[in-house]
């Protein structure tokens, strides 16, 4: 194949990746927009190991070449992720776009990545020599910066099986379909024995990286919702000072206000 390689197994793909400068191609929806001159693609869609959604004791494991449409049809994929995926583009793009590609494209606007940040997801990274499990924030660093070495490939996204039941997800865009996020928000709330165990809040599309501030989240951990209400103003002020916004077409102040409103709504939903 001119300018392209096909692989029918993960082992074969990793060998090609180690020996060539081919760019991994899963759904192609972002790569074809870039249309890089002189590029060679390694086509991954027919590799069974990258196409399955499975579950073990701790994680839902989504293959990197699983499409968004396939995820929506899977009973294993948690509602938080399904809600985000259902708002991606439109059917034809969801039929092609993949979880691995959404990370690999390196866009802070990637709708599944903001969920992965809030969910404390991990990625299984493989190469010809080894494999490793990495936290999502060590893989997706910032716009067009990934924590991947040459020859490494994202094989699976690992979402925790437990703890994602209480959530909030909102995508703010210019229209209902085919919208690129102005701001996206994913929150995961945990409550045990009346006390807050998790208040994960992740913001996408506002800065050059997906943003999550664990130190601010900690200010709510261990409190009852009523106790958290008393420090909510300080908590929101801390975010106001920390959230990075960019010079997007909607403007930085709009982005900042939307981020804070979504955060406020998230906490209010769970009694804070």
């Amino acid at each position, binding site marked *: *194949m*001119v*300018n*392209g390689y*096909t692989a029918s197994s993960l082992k074969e793909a990793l060998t090609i990746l180690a020996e060539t400068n081919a760019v991994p*191609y899963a*759904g*192609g*929806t972002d*790569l*074809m*927009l870039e*249309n890089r001159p002189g*590029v*060679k*693609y390694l*086509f991954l*869609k*027919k590799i069974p190991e990258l196409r399955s959604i499975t579950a073990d004791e701790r994680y839902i494991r989504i293959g990197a070449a699983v499409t968004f*449409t396939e995820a929506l049809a899977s009973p294993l994929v948690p509602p938080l992720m399904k809600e985000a995926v259902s708002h991606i*583009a*439109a*059917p*034809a*793009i969801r*039929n*092609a776009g993949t979880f691995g590609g959404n990370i690999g494209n390196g866009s802070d606007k990637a709708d599944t990545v903001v969920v992965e940040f809030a969910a404390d997801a991990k990625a299984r990274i493989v190469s010809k020599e080894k494999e490793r499990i990495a936290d999502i924030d060590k893989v997706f660093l910032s716009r067009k910066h990934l924590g991947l070495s040459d020859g490494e490939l994202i094989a699976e996204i690992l979402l925790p099986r437990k703890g994602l039941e209480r959530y909030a997800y909102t995508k703010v865009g210019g229209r*209902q*379909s*085919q919208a690129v996020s102005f701001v996206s928000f994913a929150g995961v709330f945990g409550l045990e024995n009346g006390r807050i165990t998790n208040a994960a809040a992740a913001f996408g599309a506002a800065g050059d990286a997906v943003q999550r501030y664990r130190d601010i989240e900690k200010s709510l951990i261990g409190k009852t919702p009523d106790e958290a209400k008393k420090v909510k103003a300080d908590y929101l002020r801390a975010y106001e000072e920390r959230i990075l916004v960019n010079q997007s077409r909607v403007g930085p102040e709009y982005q900042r206000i939307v981020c804070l409103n979504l955060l406020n709504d998230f906490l209010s939903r769970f009694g804070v």
Partner: protein
Amino acid sequence: MADIRFVLNGKETEYHGSATERLLDVLRNQYRCTSIKCGCREGECGACAVLIDGILHNSCCVAAGAVDGSSVVTLEGYRETARFAALEKAFAAVSAVQCGFCTPGMILAAEALLSKNPHPSEDEIREGLSGNFCRCTGYNAIVNAVSGAAKEGNGLW
């Protein structure tokens, strides 16, 4: 190096060009499938829609090499089917075609929808067609046409 082998509208073919070319360009320029329209080249307008292994894709966002081993259907092939006849009749009945630029993509998006959901609600039709833009803004007529095809073509999907 092997060529790109795929089935186009029911016929096996081999493409000898670059795997990185847009499927849109290959189908229009090499295979003269001019029902496929180039609207945006960004996957936003749906005018270049094709069915790959029965699934709706925007051919501007597909590399030629990605269809190796797959079956591709464009309107040139789909128009030979009874399902197309039902959709054509329904589109004509409610004047759902204005300039016609979006129509091939709309038809294939309708096929993709109806093959999964033979009796869609209006909301489901709008969702199914949400990636296909009609710059003549004839959306209501198109939605009515798909609804009509689902009713009149009962049993085809």
